[in-house]
């Protein structure tokens, strides 16, 4: 058979190159995340605290258990630290959820809200905020009433989407179409609730455009641990996501149980999205653009894209939150608007540079 043996870099191992790139992403990502985290806790509307002082204040506040704190410690411990922790979880979670959906549905225009999760979550959250609807077992003044309503609404919407999609054949296109119609349905109900909100309209709008302003220590961990945990666990299936990129027939032919994998990943990605939006509202752009940017920068291997998405999503969210709370202080901006303002020009630049060789 024909052969072309002569190449200068013939013996270079591609797997070794990938492993090296993976280690670099992890190391660089950890350093980047720590830097972004430290910047985030050092700067606030009140001014800039030197990083070394911020680190000292953070550790001393933690050592004191959050009691008897001085002004700087109090700012960092009670406000900036929980926000930063939640931002890391939400940024990483939304980026990974977007990455998973784009791979499963094989559509570059897909974001974590494609299965109607955000519309369902929004509809239920607005019902609570605007109309004062109560939830059994949860007090009407509880901090958790909106997040619980959002998670329940998001999962109900996803359940309906999944039911319609599976009932119509279960293909990726069926999921998109079912998600779009379910999204429309919940959005229209949400609009009705909004028009009835009257005095509570401003609170409702805050949730709809995303904000970390109401994050406390308790809910920061509730967001961060499951969001980051699920994101890291999802990376176990990175090779299966690679296989899915060739289409369902090819994945099936190579021995994958396509139906089970798709259902499981859809459920995981939707739960992840619901957790991310529950406490902080709907933050767009991150789940759509971060996986794209990672793909353009480092190819299609999900073993590289997924860790890079976690890092980039977390960093973008940290910086977006920083800008949202400082740039027009004391006015706080919706973080979803900032993620789009930062990400759009960067993504446009990457698209112009690399778009021609990228068919996704």
């Amino acid at each position, binding site marked *: 058979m*024909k052969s*072309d043996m002569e190449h200068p870099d013939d013996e270079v191992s591609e797997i070794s190159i990938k*492993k090296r790139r993976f280690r670099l992403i992890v190391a660089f990502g950890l350093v980047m995340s720590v830097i972004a985290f430290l910047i985030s806790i050092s700067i606030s509307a009140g001014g800039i605290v030197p990083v070394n002082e911020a680190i000292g204040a953070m550790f001393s506040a933690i050592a004191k258990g959050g009691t008897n704190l001085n002004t700087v410690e109090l700012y960092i411990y009670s406000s900036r630290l929980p926000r930063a922790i939640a931002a890391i979880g939400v940024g990483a979670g939304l980026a990974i959820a977007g990455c998973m959906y784009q791979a499963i549905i094989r559509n570059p225009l897909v974001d974590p809200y494609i299965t109607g999760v955000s519309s369902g979550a929004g509809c239920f959250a607005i019902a609570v905020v605007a109309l004062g609807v109560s939830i059994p077992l949860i007090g009407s003044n509880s901090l958790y009433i909106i997040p619980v309503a959002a998670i329940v609404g998001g999962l109900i919407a996803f359940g309906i989407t999944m039911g319609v999609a599976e009932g119509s054949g279960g293909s990726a296109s069926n999921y998109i179409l079912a998600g779009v119609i379910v999204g429309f349905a919940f959005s229209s109900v949400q609009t009705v609730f909004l028009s009835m909100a009257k005095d509570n309209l401003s609170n409702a709008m805050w949730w709809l455009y995303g904000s970390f302003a109401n994050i406390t220590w308790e809910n920061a961990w509730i967001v961060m641990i499951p969001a980051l945990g699920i994101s890291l666990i999802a990376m176990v299936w990175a090779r299966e996501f690679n296989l899915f990129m060739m289409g369902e027939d090819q994945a099936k032919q*190579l021995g994958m149980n396509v139906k089970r994998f798709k259902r499981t990943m859809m459920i995981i990605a939707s739960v992840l999205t619901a957790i991310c939006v529950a406490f902080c509202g709907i933050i767009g752009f991150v789940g759509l653009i971060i996986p794209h940017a990672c793909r353009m920068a480092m190819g299609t291997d999900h073993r590289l894209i997924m860790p890079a998405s976690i890092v980039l999503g977390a960093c973008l969210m940290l910086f977006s939150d920083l800008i949202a709370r400082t740039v027009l202080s004391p006015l706080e901006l919706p973080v979803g608007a900032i993620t789009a303002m930062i990400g759009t020009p960067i993504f446009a630049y990457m698209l112009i540079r690399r778009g021609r060789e990228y*068919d996704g």
Partner: protein
Amino acid sequence: MTDDEVLRIEHLSMVFNDHKAVNDVSYSLPKGKLVGLIGPNGCGKSTMMKCICKIHQMTDGKIFVGGQDISNMRPAEVSKLVASVPAEAGQTFGMTVMDMVMLGRYPFIDKIWWETEDDERVVREALRTFGIDHLRRKKVSTLSSGERQRALIAKAYVQQPILMLVDEPTSHLDMKYKLDVMEYLQNMARNDMTVLVAEHDISLMARYCDLCVIMKKGQIIDIGDPKKVVTEQLIRDVYEVDARVGLDVDGEIYVLPKRARWDNNPGETHFESSNP
């Protein structure tokens, strides 16, 4: 099943919404042959191939590959025996040639994440064999149609199957690449792999294939040496086309379609001009 048989199909049927796409098909293929699967659009060629590699679950019948009944085997086990080459790569999201071909090693990888040096060696050998090693870091979307087709075949080749199913490999290719791809497929058959190719170019199939399987309306019409099977009568029966079938100066079969046989002959339709 004899030692020489790679594929044996017994009474295979596949029904979609009351339509029998494949209807009680039985045949067997020997080892190391290039086999052309010929028939008109919608006759069940692709459906039958998808049943063989378990993309579709057959409605009835039995399929044996290498002597093993695949109906009770897990898809992952079947993929070590049978590989399939799609007609097109489709959207590849900027995937490189190396990454795409490496996907063919999926059934063999036991570890969670990384392929082994052995997997990489198999892939690099395949890339060299198909003359695309120098393109391994290029994106699949930037390759020519011929190079892309070779990459798809290489991906199936690294599964190290005993039976390869190839769906319309030359449909987008010019004459040179058509011959090029067929040469590769023929070489694989010469190296003891049985290759079943569904294709519309009957001249090309007759020239390269050791055997031809002819399908019409979900059933096998004929099977055998292309020089004996491909006749003007067969083309008329299967495709409803008048064609000249002959031998060229090198003794190779050519099929020259002349006219389609329609119930309502479009050649007799009088088109009215919109111009006065």
